[in-house]
């Protein structure tokens, strides 16, 4: 371990909050718009930018696993590259499953064994690095689950209890991230879902923008469930979903008719998330650990990932860290 790394490790325990960056990214290069996984060079550029602006770590998706093997030699080797750029580690993995009523649907009991086997294999894939959370969308897309009934919520909860037991066996929390277009997104349905889950095995991952879009107050939601919240995506939105915005294939983030761009960086004008109230709640609950910043599709409508990331970091330092750090 380098002297820098040792110094970094010795500094971090003094802070109650550390900041991670969820890996959505686009840049323009000779090959046109690319993401950071395009090449070692683009990955290095991404990691440098994240570190330069003050993030401590990154989150990523587990569909990157094979690219990690192919391009870097596996998760541990990829994480070494992350660390070579001054970042601490990979904190969270987002398990972006391709839900399908035929073989992968939490509210369909016949698919559960397939899902459980997926997680047994998945946790083995990531055993070479230390993770805090494996994040899931806990339901199929809304249009594949409706009508959302208590029975379906209970069946889903029972599945995630069993999945959480598997991930806990690997020292990783199973945590649920409620996209506005997934089957469990309304406040009543979220409450019923958690009433059937075991807090030992199922945690909540609060995405500030997704909840706002679904007309759920993320601050109130967090305050009610703070004891089982294992992480956050801090991002903003300017719009609430209306009509059937949440019912569009393949993905309402892309296809909803009312809104072309849902997500903005913290501090955006006209943002709907009350981040100061959110951070106050985080402080009041003595949360210690990671907050992830996410800029999903920041490049839409002329946006720029680099700038959004720097502006969000400015907001964290100049507004949020004055409340709690």
């Amino acid at each position: 371990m380098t002297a820098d790394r040792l110094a970094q490790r010795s500094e971090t325990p003094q802070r109650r909050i550390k900041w991670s960056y969820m890996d959505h990214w686009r840049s323009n290069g000779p090959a046109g718009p690319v993401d950071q996984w395009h090449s070692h060079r683009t990955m290095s550029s991404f990691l440098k930018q994240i570190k330069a602006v003050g993030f401590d770590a990154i989150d990523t998706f587990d569909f990157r696993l094979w690219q990690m093997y192919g391009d870097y030699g596996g998760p541990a080797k990829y994480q070494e590259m992350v660390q070579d750029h001054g970042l601490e580690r990979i904190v969270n993995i987002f398990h972006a499953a391709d839900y399908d009523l035929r073989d992968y649907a939490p509210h369909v009991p016949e698919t559960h064994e397939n899902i459980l086997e997926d997680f047994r294999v998945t946790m083995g894939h990531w055993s070479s690095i230390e993770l805090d959370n494996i994040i899931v969308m806990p339901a199929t897309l809304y249009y594949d689950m409706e009508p959302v009934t208590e029975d379906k919520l209970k069946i889903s909860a029972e599945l995630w209890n069993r999945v959480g037991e598997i991930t806990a066996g690997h020292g990783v929390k199973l945590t649920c991230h409620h996209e506005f277009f997934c089957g469990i997104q309304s406040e009543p349905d979220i409450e019923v879902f958690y009433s059937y889950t075991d807090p030992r095995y199922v945690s909540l991952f609060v995405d500030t923008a997704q909840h706002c879009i679904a007309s759920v107050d993320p601050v109130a939601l967090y305050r009610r469930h703070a004891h089982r919240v294992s992480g956050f995506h801090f991002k903003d939105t300017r719009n609430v979903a209306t009509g059937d915005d949440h019912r569009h294939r393949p993905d309402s983030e892309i296809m909803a008719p009312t809104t072309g761009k849902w997500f903005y960086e913290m501090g955006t004008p006209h943002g709907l998330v009350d981040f100061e109230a959110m951070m106050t709640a985080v402080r009041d609950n003595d949360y210690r650990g990671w907050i992830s910043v996410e800029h999903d599709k920041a490049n839409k409508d002329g946006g720029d990932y680099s700038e959004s990331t720097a502006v969000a970091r400015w907001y964290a330092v100049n507004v949020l860290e004055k409340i709690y750090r």
Partner: protein
Amino acid sequence: MRDTLRWAYALNQWNIRMDVFVRHEDQRRALKTLSALGFDHIELAAGTGRWDNLGRPEVIEINHGSPDGFLAFLRSCSVNGVSSMFWDPGQPVEEEGWAFRSTRNRADHAAIVESAKPFVDFLAAIGAEQLVARPAGSAWMQPPLGRDDIAAIGDVWNSVGKVAAAAGVGLALHYDCLSAVHTADELRRLLDTTDPELVGLALDTAELTIGGIDPVAFYEERHGRVTHVHLKDTRYADTGEEYRMPGAETTMLRGGAGRRIERWFFELGTEGGLVDVKAFVGALRRHGYPGWVVVESDHGGNPAELAMLNSWYLQHELSVARP
């Protein structure tokens, strides 16, 4: 930035044409980007017209009420101040009737000194330290420098330096790779003909390298005259005569002709960079350089991305700590 050197960042890359980078919100985003990266001072660049609302003192005051109002605008983004402002008296501006002036033409000297005054007064009012000036126009636009030309150029800058010094502002002449003052000997002669108490050198590492002058060696030779630094890299050097191509601003620097190199300026740490940045910064530290080091992207790509890469290089390759 926490370092023995003082670091600032130039805003020029964000301002690519008249009608961009005009909204205050766009400017705030750039300022917040730089603040988040650890830079708490910026360099401005002179411009013209109402759209270029960071380019003229009177336009800045219209936008922000006063110099203090402008400082309050910067500070609302956690940027504490302005290190410097770049100004080219050979660039015709609407505010002065699009007059075309040349520092080698003694008949223009009085007007050049007069046109410097608003910038000097503004810089003094906002606590900035340096007026960074282009000492001579592009080589391709004029005949080769004659015997008395460098003396004439030196005279006008001594006069401007006197005005600036009276206001407590420094004057630093910025070498650029297209300038009529092109060779190391011509640059030495220009420095020798100016008063060291009134006129310093703004050493731009990439511009010198493109112009065929080793910035580390030149700094070692004339470190006592260097009062301002622009730090950036390049992957190319002029083959020797490219700067004389007609329209070199576009034919050479934008790849319009010749080798068709579209991008000359690069971020610190770029692959194939010709500037020995570590040696140069090491020399600054060794000599106790007291001025501002302004990192500049200079129309190289995405401004925010390059600022982030430059900040990473400062933090991880030059051991400069973020505040």
